[in-house]
Structure formats: C-alpha cells, structure tokens
C-alpha cells in the first residue's frame, strides 16, 4: 500500500519534472502588447498565415487592436496574411530585441536600425534572413520602388538583410527651437549657421527661465558631435570612433579622436555643459520627453528634415521653428539605412512576411492605417487634394487612441499623408535633399563586423566609459583625451581600423572602378 502510494507520488513528480525540463525557458521579456492587443484579434481564420511585426513605439496605443483588425481586413483578402502588431517602448526596444534574438525566439518582421536593435550587430550575429531572393520573388513592387544604388546601402557581404524605409537619407543636423521662447527672447534663427551661434539665445533662456535650455537624454548623445555635421562619414555608428572624411577619395579610415573636429566639438560641448546649457544629470528618455512637454527645455538637436517641426509639435506639444545647420548635406550608408525592416531568421513564414512588407511599402491605404490609424476615428481629411489630415473635432494627439507619430519607422514615408498643412510638399523636398546631398565616397559600404566582434566589444566598453564623458563635456579634453586614446588602442582600436580599411579597399576595388 505504502509503496504504491510512493510510486504514484514519484510518478507525478517525475512527470512534473519532465514537463518543467521540456518546457522552453520562460520567454525573455515579452512585449506588453503581445498578449493584449496582439492576440485579441489574431485568431487565425481558415488558412491565413500569421505574421508578427515588432517595432519601437512610444507606449502602446489604446486602439492598437482596432487598427490591427483594419489592416487585417486588407491583408487577409489580398495576401492571406494575419498580422499581429507588437509595439515595444523605445527605451526598452534595443534591450528586449537583443535578448529575444539572442534567445532565438520566433519573430517575423521587425524594425532594425544602426541606432537601436543594431542592424550591423544582427547581421554579424546571424539572426537576419537574407532577402535577395525573397525580394525578387515575393516583393516586385517593393524592389522596384527604390533604385538599386539605394538597395546597395543595405547590402552586407553581398547580401541584403533589410528593407530600407524611404525617407530622409542625409542627416540635416540642426536646431529645433520652441517658437514661444524665440519670440520671448527676440531671437531669430536666420543668422544661425553653426552650433555656437545659438549661445546668446541659450544664455538668455538660462537666465530668464531658469531652465536647462538643451534637451538631452541617456539614449541620445548629450553632446555636439554628429559625424555628418562635421563632414565625416561614420561608416558604422555602432563602432562609434571610426570614419572617413566624406570627401576623401583615398578612403583613409581614421580614428575620430585624432581629428580637430572631434576636439572642437568636445571643447564646445564642455563649454556648454559648464555653462548649464546641457542637463547636469541625464534623464531617461521618457523622463526627458515629459520634461520637454512640461516646458523644462527650450530646444533640441535633431535631424531637421522637412516637416520635422510638425512631428516635434505632436510629440512635445509646443510650436517649433527648425533650421538645418549641416552644410553640405552628406549622404552616407548609415543615413540611407537609418531605418530598416528586416525578417528574422527564426521566421516560419518568410515568404508571407516579405509579401506583407511589399504591401506595407506599396499600399498607401495600408501604410497610412499603420501610420495614422482609421479614417473618421483617428483622423479626418483636412485637405484631401493635398493629402493633409487632421484630428477629428475635439481630439488632440494626447487624447487620440492611435497616433504613433513614427511613420518613418514603418515603410516608405513618401506614401504617407501629411499631419499638417505646413508639411505639404515635405516629401518632395525630402526626395530632393536625398538626390542633391553630397554622397560620401564610401556610400554603399557596410562594415562586416564578424571578424572584429571581440575588439568591438572591448572598444565599445571603453567608448561609453571613457570617451563619451569627454564628448559630453563632463571631463576636459586636455586632461582626458590622451588617456582615452591610449585605452582605446589597448582595447584593439587599431585592429578595427586595419580590418575596416581592408574591407573598404576590397569594396572600392569592386565598386569604385566604374
């Protein structure tokens, strides 16, 4: 009797143990929306193929499920895909995606970029699906929507791993200033051509308002170094310290720390930091946004693409005046690949995922559903002829149930409707900037990180710990630069420079002969 009872207990426990052992490890942080909005409407009907789309967003919109349902109406009928939207908060996006991808969790389409959920890193880690064949077979419209030279920018080691979202390609770094502040302190942006021209205004705001004038957060660079502004092509933003002079035909890879421009930017940043123009302690990204909305900043440094003032107004609730200070505009690979959609290697249905990408980039209605929500509910036509939309009566971006304000993240932005009459013509202007920007000598070259992963890991650590404090003006250039260079070298900086130079020379040999 007793023995039998023991056996049954043992058996139960053994089964439990096997079950525990066999279950996959608890999924790494699941995006908040996955269970909520994602599955609310995702019951696969018939032989629809499920496709997930993961991207970064500012919070999870309340009406996400409705927008998803509306998108599925189009997708179900047209390509037999049942889409689940999986937005993840911007601040958490990089960490969550890197963990998910490292764990091999299944995903289909996702947002990737040089600056979050790193494209180069993902390629080196082998988590992205090569897209060349898929593009030709399943997305002819998408393939034809961009010239082949643009596609080149997404090519690593001969293969395309990401679909470039068409939007602004060069980086017009400039200033984005609150209009009320400009008027109050009687300052005009007309004569501003360089960062330092802003100083009188910043001083006036600091003294008059008692606020920190310049927006910065832990994720954005809290300094005045922007490679394109200073005339450099950064080659790989994730490595951070290497690049070429954009017009250098000899394609010599240099360490930014050795350039006079980097020194100048660090010295200027320090001056600003000491003067109190930059925050003394960097807030988290969402804290900083909230502070801007509450009026605790007067301006930000941003990519001043056409129509950016309207995007910024929707985000921070102030009227803005923008001005680009980058001249000449430089078109480099990281700019052309600033936002991409990629398909995960773990995807079970890459063909359908590609068909979805094709639709998203060519179907204007579908794209605007994702970018702006449902007509009549989230927006109404203000001027249908010019494709300008607005909020329905009595609604603002704060009360709207769906206003992601990140259309550049989803696909071809030129298919987008304008948020504001002021924006009309912005896409044409943007396209013109893309065409007229000065192409970097290394445009189209992408670093293959695979052979130098160890060195990148080491130099990244030194970079964040030792170099960024100098760039951010927290420690003085004279005191710390020599030591920083030394530590960067010890961490393998030269190995990286040599390897990238070798890759660049190989690339030039095959691509620059024309």
């Amino acid at each position, binding site marked *: 009797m007793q023995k039998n009872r023991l056996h049954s207990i043992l058996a139960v426990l053994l089964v439990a143990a096997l079950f525990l052992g066999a279950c996959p490890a608890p999924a790494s942080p699941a995006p908040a929306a996955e269970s909520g909005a994602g599955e609310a409407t995702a019951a696969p009907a018939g032989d629809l193929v499920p496709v997930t789309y993961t991207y970064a967003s500012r919070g999870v919109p309340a009406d996400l499920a409705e927008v998803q349902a509306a998108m599925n109406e189009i997708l179900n009928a047209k390509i037999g895909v049942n889409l689940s939207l999986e937005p993840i908060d911007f601040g958490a996006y990089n960490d969550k995606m890197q963990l998910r991808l*490292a764990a091999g969790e299944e995903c289909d389409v996702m947002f990737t970029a040089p600056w979050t959920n790193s494209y180069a890193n993902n390629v080196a880690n082998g988590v992205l699906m090569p897209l060349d064949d898929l593009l030709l077979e399943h997305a002819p419209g998408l393939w034809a929507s961009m010239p082949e030279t643009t596609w080149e920018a997404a090519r690593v080691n001969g293969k395309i791993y990401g679909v470039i979202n068409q939007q602004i390609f060069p980086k017009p770094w400039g200033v984005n200033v609150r209009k009320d502040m400009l008027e109050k302190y009687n300052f005009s942006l007309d004569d501003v051509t360089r960062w330092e021209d802003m100083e009188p205004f910043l001083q006036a705001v600091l003294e008059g308002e008692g606020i920190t004038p310049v927006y910065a957060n832990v994720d954005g660079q809290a300094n005045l170094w922007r490679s394109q502004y200073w005339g450099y092509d950064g080659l790989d933003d994730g490595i951070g310290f290497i690049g070429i002079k954009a017009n250098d035909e000899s394609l010599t890879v240099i360490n930014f720390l050795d350039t006079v421009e980097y020194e100048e930017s660090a010295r200027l940043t320090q001056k600003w930091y000491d003067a109190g123009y930059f925050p003394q*302690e960097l807030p988290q990204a969402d804290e900083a946004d909230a502070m801007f909305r509450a009026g605790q900043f007067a301006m930000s440094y941003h990519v001043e693409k056409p129509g950016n003032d309207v995007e910024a107004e929707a985000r921070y609730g102030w009227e803005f005046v923008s001005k680009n200070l980058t001249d000449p505009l430089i078109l480099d690979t990281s700019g052309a690949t600033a936002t991409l959609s990629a398909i995960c290697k773990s995807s079970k249905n890459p063909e359908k995922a590609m068909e979805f990408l094709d639709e998203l980039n060519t179907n204007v209605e579908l794209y605007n559903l994702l970018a702006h929500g449902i007509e009549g509910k989230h927006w109404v036509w203000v001027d249908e002829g010019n494709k300008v939309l607005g909020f329905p009566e009595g609604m603002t971006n704060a009360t709207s149930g769906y206003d992601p304000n990140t259309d550049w993240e989803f696909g071809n932005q030129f298919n987008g409707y304008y948020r504001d009459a002021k924006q009309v013509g912005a896409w044409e202007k943007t396209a013109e900037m893309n065409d007229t920007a000065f192409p970097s000598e290394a445009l189209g070259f992408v670093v293959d990180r695979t052979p130098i992963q160890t060195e990148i890991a080491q130099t990244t650590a030194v970079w964040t710990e030792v170099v960024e404090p100098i760039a951010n003006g927290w420690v003085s250039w004279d005191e710390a630069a020599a030591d920083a260079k030394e530590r960067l070298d010890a*961490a393998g900086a030269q190995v990286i420079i040599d390897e990238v130079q070798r890759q660049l020379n190989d690339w030039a040999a095959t691509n620059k002969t024309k």
Partner: protein
Amino acid sequence: MQANNLKSPATKSGFFSRWIGGQRAWETNLSLLTMALPGILLLFVFAYLPMFGIIIAFKDYRFVDGILGSAWVGMENFRFLFGTDTAFRITRNTLVMNSIFIATTTIGALLVAILMNEVYQSRMSKYYQTMLFFPYFISWVIASYFVFAFLNGSTGLANQIIERFGGDPPSWYRTPEAWPLVLTVAHIWNSIGFSSIVYLAGILGISPELFEAAKIDGAGKAAQIRYITLPMLYPLIIILVLLAIGRIFHADFGLFFFVPRDTPMLYSTTDVIDTFVYRSLVQLGNISMAAAAGFYQSTVGFVLVITANWVVRRINRDYSLF
C-alpha cells in the same frame, strides 16, 4: 531486513532502499524523503540541467544551428574578457565590495542588535525594529531614486547641504571614487534590519542568569557585552559570515545596476560580474560572450567557496560547511 533486501534486489525500491541504508530506514524516512523530493527535483532541473549550457561559452552560438550544432571556437569568446583589464576589474570590484559589505553589515548588525536588546523591554522597540527592517522590502529600482534625490548635481539634497556649509559639492555621478562609500551605505541601509534581527534572536537566547551573575560580580554593560554576549554569539556570527562568503562572487545585481543608474563613467568602481554579464548580453546581443563571462564567474566562485571552507576547516572543523 538487510538480508531480506539482498535476496530480492529486483524489488522496485531496491536501489533506493540500499542507498539510504536498508528497508527499514527507507520506510522510516519515506515521508521525509517525499518532502525533500520537490526541492531535489527543482535543484536538479534549475541548477544541474542548465550546466550543459556551459558549452555555449566555447561555441560561436547561432540559434539556427542550435547549441550542439554551432561551431566550436575554443577560448575565442574569453578574449574580450582577458584582452583588456576587464576581467581583473570586475573581479576586484565584486570581491572588494562584497567583502566590505560582509564586514560592515556584520559589525553594524551586531551593534544594532546589542543596542536593540537594551531597549527590548520598552514600548518603542517594535517601532525601532520595524523602521530598520522596512528598507529590506524596498526594491532597488525605487531605492535608486532615493539615492538620486540625494546625490544629483543640480537639486540633490547632499550637494545643497555641502553648499550650505560652504563646501565644494562633487558631481557624484561622475566621481567613481565616491561610489564604494555610496554603495556601502545603501547596502547597510537595505540589509541591516534583517541581519540584526537574526543576531537579536541569538542574544535573546542567551540565558539571563549569566547576565545576572555578571551583574552581581560587578560587571558593567561593556564587560557583559564583551565577556558574555559576543562569545555566546560566536557560532552564529561565523555561520552567517561563512554563508555570505559562499556567495561573495554573486553581486547584488539590483544594487550595482540601478543605484549607480548604469552610468558608464562609474564602471571603474561599480561594474561587477553580474552587471557585466547582463550588459554583454543586451549590448552585444552575443550569447556566447555573455556565457563566457558567466562561466568565468562560476569558476572563480567555486574555487573561492572551496578555499574559504578549507580555511575554516583548518581552524575549526565544526564550523566548516562541508
């Protein structure tokens, strides 16, 4: 019983019963064993099965190829640890900070327990205990904002006080040298209530007759503490310290990650192995390199526990853990 058992080795419970000392012992201990079983299984599933994953540290792990299918790369993944002074630094920080924590918490908790014992009869004692114990339940994420409120540059309480007294306030989040102190204070704040209650229980267990006899012989408070309280607490202190040393290579992730706000400039004194492993994983997305760092932690931790135990056993066999 023994003989009976040997005759029928085919009994289903034969192996187990011989293992634990015969049929009789088997039957007597049955209930105890059953109670221990879930714990043993959990230990097996969560502590022994995952050891298989150690091989990831020696592979170029690609999830498409699987753990077994990925290519072997030897010690390649360890290069980023030992190529610079990283390994030395995170090891030093982990060991030094945990040693400081063990010392300060033990001494502080003893002191608090002795003081608390003196007011134990008073009405306020429960209030004191609760106040000291309370921080133990506060998450480090929240505590990090307390610390930030004290130390941040523009509006921080600490700097305002320093300025009031005419001092030159430091920029705390840019001064790595200050952080061993800040973290120690934060750790004491968090843990002293818990540890002191253990010691207080120990003190209450000491026979009051000893103190009475001492008083009659004319011993003052100091003498009582020195000659009665502390010697009686000795075994307890040693066991608690040994347990802490056993975990000396496991830094408190919450404390080291959130309280310094993951500030790169402070890494030289606040980066410990746990935070480093986490960062390698989320920044590089490279599971092999993170696994290599984790493997390093386990190895050194293992050696350390064995050594600590060996040392204690040389001093006094009874106090060693195994």
